[in-house]
């Protein structure tokens, strides 16, 4: 299935539109701040439109995952090809893009969150040009990660996203921005190294027949890596349930776990969030964290189904730790942003738990939770941003009684807070419930223990709600104004998505269902487990 515009594939458009925008921004004179902002908005909006077209044209019945034929909107070009007589043969890297039910929601989320991040960055005044140029570059990196089907290409996008993020936190962040930026950068880099090693091990283990020359060559093609027949019998990662396959899986896993972040690799997150400007927090929580779980789904599970099944219980266990530990840590925070950061740790634990269930409901729940957490937490960070812009403090105890002073703002807040609590009728409930329902079938007691998280979450969210919004307004905030039109433009669409998906989740579930089933079946079969349930 192909979809082109001006003879260029739609996924290329989606991925590189922001870079074009970045170039335009860089060509604008430095003083033209407004022009820079509007240019960025125009390009990210165009990206949203493309993502919308993609969503509409996406065939809900095609699985993708390990089958190249059912990947959609694919674009495949030979990118780097180095003929060599050395022992490793020809190096071939493809520009290979495509989406399936796993990546489609993420593409939509990335486009949406990027656009909203641009709107929420409107009041950035410090080196506007540089800021928006980096933001757009970041957008390309994120989008690329979600559409790349060649491991090497994936890795490049993965690293591309790192650099702008580093500068966006390190230059435009809060007082401890440099510490936070370096911590983020080094931590992610550590994961990248492990990922790189595993990628190379895979590369040298897998060969496919080159259609051009007819000889067997090594490849970075992810789908080729998922097929056990392509592994050279003598190679490091050949076979199933071998020592080196477990090692390689763990390397990949840790690489992605840092991004999720999974306990104990999560401490970069609160620091990065607290120091990052609002828009960057929104992107961080809204999209970046999903790259970790997406990596598990796209790479770790289908390439190492044997190891994935072997480590299923530990995976569910870290999910449980994330849920409970994150919730407890959130409860003790005094900084609004830090609290939301820890709630992310907790909510991403639900994604992990759902995936570890390795059945349809859990997998769908986990995948949908990725999307829902992206929208809900983005709202929460925007909500923090709104009062931080006005008061320059985030201390939970500095507020009170905002409900009366800022009624529209509070109305939106109620939607976001209760979505995070998992109230039925809002999107968070569907994904949480499915994750738990699925996980319960695989891990009975662990899921029961994890379910205590829903009480803890209600506890810290309502406590926060009370401290900030109920009670009486401190006199120093008498001058506060309600949300502006711009703030409504960024908050209301997210609120509508949260509400619509809560009432009619099929809109998103349909997209993911076929792929989720295929992934579950594939992993179970690959790991030597009878398919069913």
């Amino acid at each position, binding site marked *: 299935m192909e979809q082109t515009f001006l003879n260029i594939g739609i996924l290329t458009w989606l991925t590189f539109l922001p870079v074009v925008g970045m170039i335009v921004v860089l060509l604008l004179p430095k003083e033209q701040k407004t022009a820079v902002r509007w240019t960025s908005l125009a390009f990210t909006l165009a990206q949203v439109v493309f993502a919308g077209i993609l969503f509409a044209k996406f065939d809900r019945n095609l699985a993708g995952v390990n089958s190249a034929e059912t990947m959609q909107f694919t674009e495949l070009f030979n990118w780097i090809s180095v003929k060599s007589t050395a022992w490793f043969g020809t190096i071939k890297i493809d520009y290979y893009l495509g989406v399936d039910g796993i990546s489609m929601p993420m593409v939509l989320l990335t486009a949406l969150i990027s656009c909203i991040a641009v709107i929420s960055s409107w009041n950035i005044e410090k080196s506007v040009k540089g800021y928006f140029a980096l933001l757009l570059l970041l957008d390309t990196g994120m989008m690329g990660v979600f559409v790349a089907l060649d491991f090497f290409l994936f890795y490049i996008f993965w690293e591309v996203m790192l650099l702008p993020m580093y500068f966006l936190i390190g230059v435009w962040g809060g007082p401890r921005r440099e510490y936070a930026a370096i*911590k983020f950068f*080094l*931590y992610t880099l550590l994961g990248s190294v492990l990922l790189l090693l595993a990628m190379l091990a895979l590369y040298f283990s897998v060969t496919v027949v080159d259609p051009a020359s007819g000889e067997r060559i090594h490849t970075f093609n992810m789908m080729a890596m998922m097929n056990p027949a392509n592994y050279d019998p003598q190679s490091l990662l050949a076979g199933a349930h071998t020592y080196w396959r477990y090692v390689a899986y763990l390397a990949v896993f840790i690489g992605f776990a840092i991004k999720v972040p999974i*306990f*104990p690799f*999560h*401490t*970069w997150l609160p620091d990065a969030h607290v120091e990052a400007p609002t828009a960057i927090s929104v992107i961080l929580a809204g999209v970046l964290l999903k790259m970790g779980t997406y990596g598990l789904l796209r790479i770790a599970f289908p390439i190492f189904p044997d190891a994935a099944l072997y480590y299923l219980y530990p995976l569910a266990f870290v999910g449980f730790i994330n849920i409970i*530990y994150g919730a*407890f*840590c959130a*409860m*003790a*925070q005094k900084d609004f942003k830090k609290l939301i950061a820890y709630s992310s740790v907790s909510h991403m634990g639900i994604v992990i738990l759902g995936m570890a269930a390795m059945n*349809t*409901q859990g997998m*769908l729940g986990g995948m949908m939770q990725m999307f829902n957490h992206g929208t809900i937490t983005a709202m929460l960070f925007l909500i923090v941003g709104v009062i931080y812009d006005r008061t320059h403090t985030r201390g939970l105890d500095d507020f009170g*009684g905002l*409900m*009366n002073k800022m009624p529209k703002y509070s*109305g939106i807040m109620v939607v976001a807070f*209760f979505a995070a609590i998992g*109230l*039925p*009728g809002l999107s968070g*409930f569907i994904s949480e*419930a499915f994750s*738990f*329902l699925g996980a*319960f*079938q695989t891990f009975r007691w662990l*899921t*029961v223990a994890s*379910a*205590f998280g*829903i*009480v*803890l979450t*209600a*506890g*810290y969210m*309502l*406590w926060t709600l*009370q401290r900030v*919004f*109920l*009670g*009486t307004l401190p006199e120093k905030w008498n001058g506060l104004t309600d949300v502006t039109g711009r703030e409504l433009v960024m908050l209301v669409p997210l609120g509508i998505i949260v509400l619509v998906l809560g009432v009619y*989740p*099929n809109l998103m*579930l349909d997209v993911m*269902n*076929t792929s989720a*089933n295929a992934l579950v079946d594939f992993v179970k079969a690959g790991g030597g487990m009878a398919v*069913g*349930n």
Partner: protein
Amino acid sequence: MRPELTIALAVLLLPLASFTLLIFTGRRYSERSGLVGTAFLGIDLLLALYLLAAKVPSDLKVWDHTFTWIDFHTAVNGVPLKIDIGIMVDDLTAVMLVVVTLISFLVHLFSLAYMKGDVRFSRYYANLGIFTFSMLGIVLTNNYLLMYVFWELVGLSSYLLIGHWYEKKSAADASKKAFLVNRVGDLGFFIGIMIVWMQFSTLTFDGIFGQIAGGKVPFDSNAWLTAAGMLIFCGAVGKSAQFPLHVWLPDAMEGPTPVSALIHAATMVAAGVYLTARTFPMLTADALLVIAYVGAVTAFIAATIALVQNDIKKILAYSTVSQLGYMVMGLGVGAYTAGVFHLVTHAAFKAGLFLASGSVIHAMHHALHHQHDHHTDAQDIRHMGGLKGKMPVTFWTMLIFTLAISGVPLTSGFMSKDEILAGTLAFSHFTGHTLIPVIGFLVAGLTAFYMFRMLIVVFLGSHPDAHRAEHLHESPKVMTVPLMVLAALSFFAFYSFNPLNASHGWFMENVTPPAVAVPAAAAATATETFVEEVHHQHSLAMLLSVGVAGLGILAAFVFYHWRKVSADAVMNAAKPVHTFLYNKWFFDELYHATAVAATLGTARALAWFDAVIVDGIVNGAGAVTKGFSTVSGKFDSIVVDGIVNLTATVAGFLGMLLRTVQTGRVQTYIVFALIGLMALLALYI
């Protein structure tokens, strides 16, 4: 879908429409928003009445409509995996629809005057709308998924309404407490749903009970069936304020009084009883026994606390908890119809009691306001007295409600309470658990006593402040009419034409126990045998209940009206008991010292662990790396580079030495050459 079900959907959605309209445009309507909401509910009530009238004579037991909400496009053991949801109307549902819409309508009406001039008048009406919608959803659903959805939505609306005056810390605290305590119960409910979903792959009542009746029990064990039933019942423990999760309901009285009437007396708290009734077919004998004891213990604890409270709403709140315990106990002993019947009769007279107390509080507020008195508590019964002459309608209706709750013949409460008590006697006959009927009759007596205590102290005697008494007036029509309607509904005639026995009335004839699905080995006494035994025990139960109620009423008059015995003297004589009861058995203190403290303590400890240990390791790794690089930098600059430099220095030194030799003068070189030559000659010759 049957046309009647379309009407049922309309009944469900009208209050939601009211909410949506008022939440977005309510501020523009201001005072008129109350009329808008009331109009919506009025239509809703008419539709519900029509449904009831159509359903009861209908030959079909259930009208339902099920559709597939989510299809997972996969199969488990050959059975397609999908989630079916839908709505159903049976006689119980039809009755409940009328109960909910009627009380909601009356509360809407009552609030027009009671909430007049409130800061968030339209928001209040919007929230009443979403509450009614959620409550109707609970009643209409035919599956546990939608049940849980509406269950939580009811929790949300309760949160919003309890915290209506959120500027007050106590109100904000109470709303939070209500939501969290309910969440604890809902956790159990959710775990129960997970078991059911895993084992039966369906969440519809019919589907689950059908499979159980077909011989399938969770994990092939009757114990798990008991566990599943009890876990689902956990939801009821939360929502119906049963021991040990009853602590939120009295605090919920921070909400406006009409809200207490609607949510915390008549409908929402009855949802737990309704859930238990719907789950009835899958409850094993063990589960039912636990449920019966939970209900009995709740009824007893709450009744003892209600004896000594002075806040008019607190007394009513504890009496609600106690009566809910009664209903749960009724279901637990197997008296299904009696438990549900008490739910319905209680809804009318308890809503009436709350609205009447609202009327009293309203009058007290006005009088205190006139006196510019902002310290006297308008809800403390010790500040009332002699209101009978000032507020005749409120008094007479309140008297009827009090008679009904005390179980005096000719009232609805007498009939339903009687059925429950007969059920407990039958239960003890079959199982030997005599404690249940003992508690049942004891609580009946206590109820009559504390309710008449309240009535006497508030309405009889004389008012403590003569000046204030002059400003006390009866409430306006819009408030008294709902009281009169509810008072009428507290008479027997609406439920059965025989005032002494309701079993041939339309309610008990139509709302019959569902077929039990539990395997025979785990099931309680068969329904037919049980019903027969209830008939045997009926006369005894009636005599005993009238007797204890009479005693309770008599005692109340002796203590508080005729003052033959000083209540204060008794109180002082039993000071520790009074303190214990007045402080509600210290449940709040206990929970604060254990569950709350443990949670907050763990949170603080883990946050410390996270910041100091986990992050410490990360920063430590950074510091170690940095330290290592400093050392290696030093090594590089001192040792490695030192060796390089040393080599250079040595070479330089040698060079310097040699340089002194290199004078450039031929004479010196000749001298050196001669010395060398001589040295060689000396060596070799």
